[in-house]
């Protein structure tokens, strides 16, 4: 049909729509959608009729060669519709009363052309319609009719002239996403990101693969930030005492106060910000402080790095930033350092460096970065962990010791003393721990210059100071441990600062307090009584995204911006500076922190963009043109080249250590930031609320974690509500979770819950632990008492059982076992060798997609879960539904305990769909809604699914998820914007599942076909793979012998989960090999 000449009458059996479709070369290609259906894209009609009216082919205004070789402009072109005709149309409309009907502008204008068209159109064989070229005619009618809607009484259109997509913005091709580099700031550190934008809507956030401090890895907070942008509970207006106000009225109101403060040299002016690493913001604040010499700027993060700073002060007499090179570290000792947690600076790169050194033997396939550059294989590292509450590091460690906080400090002293640093520390508690410490010390001494001792942010300064001293003693500095200048702009003791501020507030010295993006009413230390102090301040301005616990107590609420809405900058953990560029205009017209600060200068209306550029102009020498090029490059890359902070030579000069904290004061309470909602700022993020915690798989709540022995001793059960009382009589009521590995005589809990004004999602989830926290003891409170209230609270977990029941689910062996038998994992289970199936064998001749998950590399950080949720439009179901086993995650990370409950070994296992070649789900579907693709994918056809759920019953991996209700939010407009347009939104009663991100596969395949080549290895990455900071997930074509996934599957460690069922899973696992110190006995041998 495409070769038909224009003049040949086309037979009537072709419908106009067929013509329409086939005559559009290139852009009318059927496209595979997420649900396996083929959908035909009709250019112009489906997207924007306006485009067609003025520009014949979207994205290309050149006249195009049509099928019959004629120039398109020869045919009837809507572009010919001149101004004259429009004028005629208007006149005609003006002259008529009552409704007028027309089919096109031509009719309205009474054009001759139209009359001809009408004559040909209907009575005689409808030749116009059937002619391929006069698709243009159809377009014209459509376009003109719709355009005319604007000429008439359409109420939706603003009075001002609006500009349609006459010419598309440069770079924007409808349906093709764009990627922008930007950065998120958390605790003062910039997290470099690459954000996917669909037609101006950011939909997906990943790590910036080019950034030296990230390597493309991601974390749960970064992944979930996109939902934060579209949070329907964000504030939408500026408020003055509850009344809606314009930004200009704020500016007006503030000028008077600023003028008053100018007279007072800013004596009553105070700023409270989060930790600032943004050079521009610091530049602005310093300028303001210059203009108001007596004004003060404080920073407050509830989970701050005061102890880190104090520890550095103690060791070096100055604050330095510490970063590590774990690629060089044979021995890593974590002193409660949660190096894989998303809030630990540098966690992305540490996870990957750690994983790179977890290869049992040099013949194995190395870990790569996101751009597929292999990281070198070196002898396997060994991770020691001393912790007060088990976390991801515990799970990955080869040896771990669970200790109460006071003991942890003592053991650090002990290790330091034994290495020749006089720090006291006494003796180990028992013979097992003595052997443990001896083994660790010998290991450290045997690997001088190739070990790293890392202290956690929540550890007291002395532990940090000793860690620095130990690292120096072992010769690690400059090799595995690097010191640099501070990354933050104004390193200061934040707790002391806040105390000072509160004292000033109470003393009535503060006239004007500007708080931006902090929430001290909720999270300030309980002994400060911030709220009481706040009420003594006359002028209170709150700038932020939410009307949170603090905002209602302030006079002014100034609407803030999400980081995807504003220009800014920041420094990542290694000091690399980066520009934060907005992906979207402020959704509710908020103002960035830079713009609010400008209100205190003589340029109150200067934009954030101007401010950031102005600052950097002062930093970049050369002409304006040079700056322009530099700016473009830096914004494009997301970071400023060569801005990584260089190593700083420092020497440990240990100050006098504080006296030892006495041990054994009853139950010690351990307080930690939450792995999902952090300090509470993410409480309203549904993805994070529903995210199972790494170890316990708890969702929607925090809990009081107690060890199994102590639970038995105190007769505590899961869900028992207890009253926690600190020695200074602070009380909080929370629910108990019995947590294997939680050290005896301790109880651990997290911040961030029990919020009252976070929004619909976060309000009422969990219990608020901040009331227990004082400025003196922010992370560990000794001498706590627990009292059972007799009440019960329902705690929800997504994992029903965490014992492997002697099934070979996670296969693991020690390094020496591996060396004796590299194929140990395969020997654990007999896999069927032949094609034992009734159905004919299928040969996958083209691509055969497969996945390999390295259990040794997986640190259990959950980034894959949120990445999958963002990519595949997975709904949040809420606590009640999770309680009924109805969470929707397509990939989950199982955690299993093994061994002594007091001191277990923990395994993480990410489980996406296995894409079985003999998929049990497929044979049982009565309507064929789940079928196998020619590339080996187990596809789910959502609109064919009737919801018998038989497939889920027959899935041994239970990776299928069912929409028991209409879980998707079809109404909230903000959430509509958050969705990935390439993936179907599933409705009620439909089964859904992981498809290896089939939309990404299809996109990659189409691109390869266009370029007439095979898909390259690593060209297509699944969302989970892309997000994984450790590089544990590898996806690719297993028919390509040279692909990484194929090589991984050749490894002796490769095994299929439940492969004995003859499911022939395409997702396979690399068995775990751990590297224990032979001198340290197994924890189970400890008894007696």
């Amino acid at each position, binding site marked *: 049909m495409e070769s038909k000449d224009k003049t040949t009458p086309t037979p009537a059996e072709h419908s106009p729509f067929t013509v329409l479709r086939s005559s559009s070369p290139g852009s009318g290609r059927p496209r595979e959608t997420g649900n396996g259906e083929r959908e035909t894209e009709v250019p112009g009609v489906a997207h924007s009729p306006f485009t067609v009216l003025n520009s014949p082919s979207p994205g290309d205004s050149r006249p195009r060669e049509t099928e019959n070789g004629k120039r398109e402009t020869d045919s009837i072109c809507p572009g010919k519709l001149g101004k004259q005709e429009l004028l005629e149309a208007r006149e005609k409309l003006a002259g008529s009363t009552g409704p007028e009907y027309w089919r096109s502008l031509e009719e309205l204008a009474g054009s001759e052309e139209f009359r001809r068209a009408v004559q040909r159109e209907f009575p005689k064989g409808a030749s116009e319609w059937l002619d391929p070229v006069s698709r243009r005619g159809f377009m014209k009618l459509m376009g003109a009719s719709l355009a005319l809607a604007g000429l008439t009484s359409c109420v939706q259109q603003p009075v001002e002239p609006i500009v349609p997509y006459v010419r598309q913005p440069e770079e924007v091709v409808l349906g093709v996403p764009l990627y922008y580099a930007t950065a998120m700031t958390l605790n003062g550190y910039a997290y470099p990101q690459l954000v996917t934008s669909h037609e101006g809507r950011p939909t997906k956030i990943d790590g910036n693969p080019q950034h030296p401090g990230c390597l493309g890895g991601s974390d749960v907070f970064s992944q979930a930030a996109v939902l934060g942008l579209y949070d329907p509970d964000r504030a939408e207006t500026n408020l003055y005492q509850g009344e809606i106000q314009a930004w200009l009225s704020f500016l007006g109101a503030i000028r008077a106060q600023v003028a008053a403060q100018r007279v007072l040299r800013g004596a009553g002016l105070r700023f409270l910000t989060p930790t600032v690493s943004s050079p521009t913001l610091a530049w602005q604040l310093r300028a303001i402080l210059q203009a108001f010499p007596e004004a003060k700027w404080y920073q407050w993060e509830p989970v701050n790095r005061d102890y880190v700073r104090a520890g550095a002060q103690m060791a070096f007499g100055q604050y330095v930033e510490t970063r590590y090179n774990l690629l060089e570290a044979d021995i890593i000792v974590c002193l409660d350092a949660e190096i894989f947690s998303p809030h630990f600076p540098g966690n992305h790169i540490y996870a990957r460096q750690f994983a790179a050194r977890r290869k049992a033997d040099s013949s194995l396939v190395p870990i790569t970065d996101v751009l597929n550059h292999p990281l070198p294989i070196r002898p396997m590292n060994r991770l020691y962990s001393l912790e007060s509450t088990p976390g991801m590091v515990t799970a990955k460690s080869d040896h771990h010791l669970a200790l109460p906080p006071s003991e942890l400090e003592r053991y650090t002293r002990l290790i330091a003393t034994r290495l020749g640093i006089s720090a006291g520390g006494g003796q180990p508690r028992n013979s097992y721990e003595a052997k443990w410490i001896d083994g660790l010390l010998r290991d450290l001494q045997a690997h001088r210059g190739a070990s790293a001792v890392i202290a956690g942010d929540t550890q007291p300064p002395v532990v940090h100071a000793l860690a620095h001293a130990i690292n120096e003693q072992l010769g690690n500095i400059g090799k595995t441990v690097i010191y640099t200048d501070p990354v933050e702009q104004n390193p200061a003791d934040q707790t002391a600062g806040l105390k000072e501020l509160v004292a000033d507030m109470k003393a009535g010295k503060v006239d004007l307090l500007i708080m931006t993006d902090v929430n001290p009413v909720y999270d300030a230390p309980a002994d400060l009584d911030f709220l009481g102090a706040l009420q003594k301040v006359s002028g209170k301005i709150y700038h932020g995204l939410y009307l949170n616990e603090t905002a209602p107590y302030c006079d002014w609420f100034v609407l803030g911006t999400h980081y995807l809405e504003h220009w800014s900058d920041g420094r990542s953990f290694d000091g690399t500076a980066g520009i934060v560029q907005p992906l979207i205009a402020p959704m509710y017209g908020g103002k960035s922190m830079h713009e609010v600060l400008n209100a205190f200068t003589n340029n109150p209306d200067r934009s954030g963009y101007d401010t950031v550029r102005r600052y950097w102009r002062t930093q970049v020498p050369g002409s304006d043109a040079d700056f322009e090029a530099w700016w473009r490059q830096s914004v494009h890359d997301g970071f400023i080249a060569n801005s990584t902070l260089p190593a700083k030579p420092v020497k440990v000069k240990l100050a006098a250590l504080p006296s030892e904290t006495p041990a054994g004061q009853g139950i010690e309470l351990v307080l930690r930031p939450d792995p999902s909602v952090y300090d509470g700022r993410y409480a309203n993020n549904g993805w994070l609320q529903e995210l199972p915690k790494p170890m316990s798989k708890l969702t929607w709540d925090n809990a009081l974690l107690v060890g199994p022995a102590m639970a038995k001793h105190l007769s505590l059960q899961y869900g028992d509500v207890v009253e926690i009382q600190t020695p200074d009589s602070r009380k909080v009521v929370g629910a108990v979770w019995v947590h294997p590995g939680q050290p005896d005589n301790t109880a651990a809990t997290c911040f961030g819950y029990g919020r009252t004004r976070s929004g619909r999602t976060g309000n009422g989830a969990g219990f608020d632990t901040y009331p227990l926290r004082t400025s003196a003891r922010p992370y560990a409170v000794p001498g706590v008492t627990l009292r059972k209230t007799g009440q019960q609270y329902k705690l929800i977990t997504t994992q029903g059982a965490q014992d492997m029941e*002697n099934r070979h689910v996670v296969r693991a062996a020690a390094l020496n076992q591996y060396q004796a038998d590299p194929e140990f994992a395969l020997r654990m289970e007999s896999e069927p060798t032949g094609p034992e199936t009734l159905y004919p064998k299928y040969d996958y001749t083209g691509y055969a997609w497969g996945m390999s998950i390295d259990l040794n590399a997986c640190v259990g950080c959950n980034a894959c879960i949120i990445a999958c949720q963002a990519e595949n439009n997975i709904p949040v179901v809420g606590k009640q539904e999770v309680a009924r086993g*109805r969470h929707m995650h397509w990939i989950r990370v199982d955690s299993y305990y093994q061994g002594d409950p007091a001191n277990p070994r923990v395994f993480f296992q990410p489980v996406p769909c296995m894409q079985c070649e003999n998929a*049990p789900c497929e044979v049982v579907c*009565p309507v064929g809604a789940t079928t196998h693709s020619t590339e080996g994918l187990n596809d789910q056809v959502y609109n064919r699914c*009737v919801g018998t759920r038989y497939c889920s*019953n027959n899935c041994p991996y239970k990776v299928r998820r069912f929409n*028991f209700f209409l879980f998707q939010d079809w109404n909230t407009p903000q959430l509509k914007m958050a969705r990935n347009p390439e993936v179907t939104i599933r409705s009620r*009663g439909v089964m859904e599942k992981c498809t290896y991100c089939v939309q990404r596969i299809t996109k990659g395949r189409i691109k390869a076909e266009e370029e007439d080549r095979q898909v390259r290895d690593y060209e297509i990455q699944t969302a989970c793979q892309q997000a994984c900071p450790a590089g544990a997930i590898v996806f690719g074509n297993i028919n390509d012998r040279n692909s990484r996934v194929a090589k991984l599957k050749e490894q002796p460690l490769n095994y299929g989960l439940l492969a004995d069922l003859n499911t022939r899973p395409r997702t396979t696992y690399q068995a775990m090999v751990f590297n224990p110190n032979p001198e340290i006995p197994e924890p189970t041998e400890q008894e007696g």
Partner: protein
Amino acid sequence: MAEVREGEIMNVQHGRPAVLLPGHDYGTITDKISGIVFSAHTPIAWWFAFFPALALIGLLGIAATYLFYQGVGIWGIEIPVAWGFAIINFVWWIGIGHAGTLISAILLLLKQSWRNSINRFAEAMTLFAVMCAGMYPIFHLGRPWLAYWLFPYPNTMTVWPQFRSPLVWDVFAVSTYFTISLLFWYTGLVPDLATLRDSARNRWAKMIYGMLALGWRGSARHWKRYESAYLFLAGLATPLVLSVHTVVSFDFSIAILPGWHATIFPPYFVAGAVFSGFAMVLILAIPIRRVYGLQDVITMRHLDNCAKVMLATGLIVAYGYFAEVFFSWYGANPYEKYITWNRAHGPYAAVYWATILCNVAIPQLLWLRKVRFSPVRLFFVSLVVLMGMWFERVMIVVISLHHDFLPSSWGIYIPTRWDWAIFFGTIGFFLAAFLLFIRLLPMISIFEMRHLVRETTEEAKLL
């Protein structure tokens, strides 16, 4: 007509109670059975059963409406236990529906004339039970409005059902079974409908029964055609009795799930179905003969025979339980081993032991003559068996699903009030339909009883 007291064993022939007590001739039989239909007086017990049944239908309506409005999430099902009450009750009702056709078809072919007194209402019971069962697969679907996609109908999408799935086999098995059962029941009704037409005095009754009687005049040709059609349908229905529950058992045994994936399932399911079906026959027959004074027509012989069938099939079911345990040990499959252990010791252990108690232990009482010959005791044993078979389905569906291969995805299933509402709702539907049947149609085959009168009187003459 003889007055008969409950439990009295009269006219013992060859040591067994008679199929029909003496004193009946053609006229009395006809009057007695059609009198129940034509009587202006409805027994008070009927109303006592009918009103609660109607209330339960109302409950079913509410529950189904809410279900269609909200989705299957209103039930307790979840991942991993994605099948719950809907499938349990489907299998249970289908099982109950087995007795009718078995009695009618197989016993007809085996020339067991004692079936004549109970076949009619047993068949009706089958139809209503299959109707109840048939509702569940539709309720059960995530998108019930697309239920017709399970049928192979020509459509513009040119897609067919997926014939490898046992759920599609179910569609055929159940719909065929229902169709044949309906035809068989109706064919058997035709001569009696003519009898009713002839004796009805009410004009409307005359017309309706007349239409339903399809012009039956009782000519020899009619009888000849009738006999061959009835026999033919019996022949058709006989394999269906075995096939339906075999296919239903495939829903489970085709799957790879431990606890489902077992070759014993087809015979074990069929036996279980007959077991529960006969229990239901007894549960219905015992009050009916009491309320309507039908002890001379439905005699102790019938109850005894039904009890014996129950005992026999119950033993097959017990063997099935034993075989499952044996295979899980002998097969040395860790998952099968675990599920057997879990049934007896896991969170649903009570269900397992209730099953064993109700289906294996208590039915052994049926060895005792004094249990078989006591309608009250028999009634309670039957009730226990019916409950036991329901527990068995819970055991198969829920226990197998809730702990399968990967401990990480283990879960627990707790039925919600909506699960129960629909279950009780279908019981209400069943009862109401059955009560209407006994009120409006002859619940015992009149002409076959007349046949029996001749046989018994001839026997008596011979004695």
